[in-house]
Structures are given as C-alpha cells and as structure tokens.
C-alpha cells in the first residue's frame, strides 16, 4: 500500500501521458494541460510545508540564539509583512477587489523598492564572476581547454570594436577572416554542431530516465519500504 500504490500511480500516469500525445480525442488531448493545472494547485498546498519549514528553521535559530539569530528575525518579519500585504491587500487603492499588485499598494511598493533592487543586484554580481571565471578558467592546459579558449576569444573580440580594428585590412577573398565574420561563423557552424549533439543526447537521456521512472526501475524518490 505504501509503496505499491505510488509505483502503480507513476506507471499509469506516465504511460497514459506518453500515449495521450498521440490521442487527440477527449479526454486525452489536453491531459498535459490538465496536469500542469493540477501541479500548480498541488504546489500551493506544498508551499505550506515549505513556508512552514522556513518559519520553523528561523524560529529555532532565534530560540536557541544560534549565530546570526538576529537576522532570522529580519527574515521572518519580511516574510510576514509581504504575506500580509499581499493576502489582505493592504493600502490597495482599489480595495480588496483590486489587483494584488496595483500601483500604490503596499505589496507593489515592497516589490518595487525592495524586492526589485535586491533581485537586480544579485543578478548584476554575475558581471564580477564572469570576470573572475575568465581569469581563472580559460587557460591553455591541454588541447580541449585551448580550443575552448580560442572559441571564447574569437566571440569576445568579434563583439567589440577591437575585432574589427585588428583585422580591417583583410578584404576581398580574405574578408571571411575578419574577426566579426569569424565570430559569426563560429556561432553558426561548430557551435551549432556541438549544441545539436548535446540536445540529441539530452533527448535520449530524458527518454531513458523517464522509462526507468515509469517502469519503476528507478524508485529512490519514493521513500522507504517499511511495510
């Protein structure tokens, strides 16, 4: 019961959904959409577990005065305030019937002035990490690494004015050697080939793994056998 039923559910649901793609007739035709709707609904209920876990972890931290427990208070306050602002639509100019993110509502203000800058700043850190990664990682250690390096180099040069300056002299039949042209070629030919090999490989990997899951060969995610 504890393990057989879930395995059966996986098998039936998986098989039906694979076949449903080839059956346009109701109710199979839109089973995929139905599932994503069901998934979204399950996700809300599951959030109660996740959000509950968040609250519990931070309350424990505060209770036991673990290192940095003060910041847990900040997290909890942030969580509760945002939740209240959104669920009760606090200071929403259109009232409780209005759109949750209406301009002027507390929810939208928190989003605009706190959430958005945090999100954008974290995203912007990437620029720094791109710098440090390129300093460290692109080294001509062996043939493979050298090829990686050269490809990256051509594309980088091709997207700045230097690329053109360096090779402007190459005209006529040699124009294809101009770095911007070379960069386009790298994108369109060898890069594309590599992408396709990766994509086809992924397709086969997914198919094989899906089959292992559907057939119950892979069942680690279902938890222990205790009955």
């Amino acid at each position, binding site marked *: 019961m504890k393990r057989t039923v*879930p395995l059966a559910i*996986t098998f039936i649901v998986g098989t039906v959904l694979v076949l449903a793609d080839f059956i346009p007739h109701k109710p199979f035709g839109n089973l995929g959409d139905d599932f994503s709707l069901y998934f979204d609904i399950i996700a809300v209920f599951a959030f109660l577990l996740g*959000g509950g876990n968040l609250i519990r972890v931070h309350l424990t931290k505060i209770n036991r005065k673990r290192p940095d427990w003060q910041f847990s208070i900040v997290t909890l306050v*942030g969580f509760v305030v945002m939740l209240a602002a959104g669920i009760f639509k606090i200071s929403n100019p259109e009232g409780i019937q209005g759109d949750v993110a209406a301009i002027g509502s507390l929810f939208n203000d928190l989003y605009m002035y706190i959430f958005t800058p945090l999100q954008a700043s974290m995203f912007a850190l990437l620029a720094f990490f791109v710098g440090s990664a390129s300093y460290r990682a692109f080294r001509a250690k062996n043939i493979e690494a050298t090829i990686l390096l050269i490809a990256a180099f051509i594309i*980088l040069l091709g997207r700045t004015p230097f690329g053109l300056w360096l090779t402007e002299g190459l005209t006529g039949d040699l124009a294809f050697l101009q770095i911007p042209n070379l960069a386009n070629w790298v994108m369109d030919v060898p*890069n594309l080939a590599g992408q396709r090999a990766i994509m086809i490989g992924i397709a086969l990997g997914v198919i094989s793994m899906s089959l292992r899951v559907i057939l119950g060969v892979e069942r680690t995610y279902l938890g222990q056998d205790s009955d």
Partner: protein
Amino acid sequence: MNFDIGIWIAAFLTLGIMSFLYKDNPWYKISEAIFIGLSAGYWFVSLFWQNLVSKLWDNLWPALDALFTRGEFTGGLLYLIAGILGLMMLMRLVPQIGWISRWPLALVVGATAGLQFINYLVSNGVIQVYNTITPLFGPVSEAGGIAPVTDVWHGLGNALILVGTFTGLVYFFFSKEHKGFFGGAARVGTWFLMITFGASFGYTVMSRMSLLIGRLDFLVNTWITGIFT
C-alpha cells in the same frame, strides 16, 4: 511610499548585496535576510492568488454551487481531485499517515516523466535530426524548404555541422570504450563541445556586463546625483 525613501532603501540594499564581493558581512546578511523573507512571501502571495484562487477556487466554487443548488455534475468538480491531492501533500504533517503524501508525489513524478518524454523526443531529438539533414554539395532545388548550397564554403560548413553533430554523439556513447577509431571520433566530438562552451561563454559576457551597468547607473545617476540636486 515616498519615492526618495524608496531610492535610499534600494541603494542601501544594492550596496549591501555588492559588499559580498569583498567578504561576508552584516550588511550583506541583512540584505540577504530581507531578500529571503520578502521573496518567499511574494511567491506565496502569487501562488495564493494565481493558483489557489484563480485556478482552484474560481473553477471549483461554481461547480460545487451547481451540484448543491441544482444537483448538476459539471466538469469543474474534477478540481476537487486536485484539491484532495494538495491536501494529501499536507498529510506529511501527521507522521502516522505521512506516507499518503507519496501519492501526489508519485503522480507528479510520473506525469513529469511522461510529458517530458514526449517533449524532449520531439523538440530536442527529432527536430534536431531534421535540421541536420542537409545537402553538402549544391545546388538542390528549394523543395522541402532546404536552402540550396550556394558555394563551397557553405557546403563545407554543412559538412562540418554533420561531422560535429556525429562525433559529438559518439562522445556521449556509454557502452563503447573510447579507443581506436571510435576514441578518435569521440575526441573530435569533445572539441566541438568545447567550441560550443567557449562560444556560449563569450556570447553571454556582454549581457552580463549590461546588468551591472544598469545597477551602477542607478547608484551613480539616480541615487548619488539625486543627493546633490
């Protein structure tokens, strides 16, 4: 909220996140703590209105209404199943019957496996094979929507795509040792993969730099300039 206060808060948080680059510090910790709490709350609010209210309640309520007031069975009642599956997830909170939550999990995993099987087969597998099939030597008439091969370079490019895709797949073979001719082909395959990685990396740099420019612009031109004007 007052716009100026908003800008000050945004600047405070932006610098807090960036201070992480130097080292972990209380300023980063407080920005991080706010971010986690606020964003978790934001997501729950979004899930609440978009999924629970719009998808479950707005569909289920009319169906229940129809059932109890007029005794009609309507399609909306199927949402009851979704609601029950959701409640089954919550059974984890009760240790004795926590195993019930495996049912919706099994449904999720099974459905994901089934749906993605087809999605990947089509969009990652079959279509990529389709796109790789081209003539290496022209001219082929436009029949079938294939661009005719215009010159030798174009043909060589097509040939290179064929070689790259082919050897790349050889690299992924699991059940054959990478030795001899097969090993050589796999090696060539890795070269193509390396070009792909290098090219994607180089390509992304510009976009990533723009993001930082945007943040610096805010700090310099909105916040600091704002202080002095």
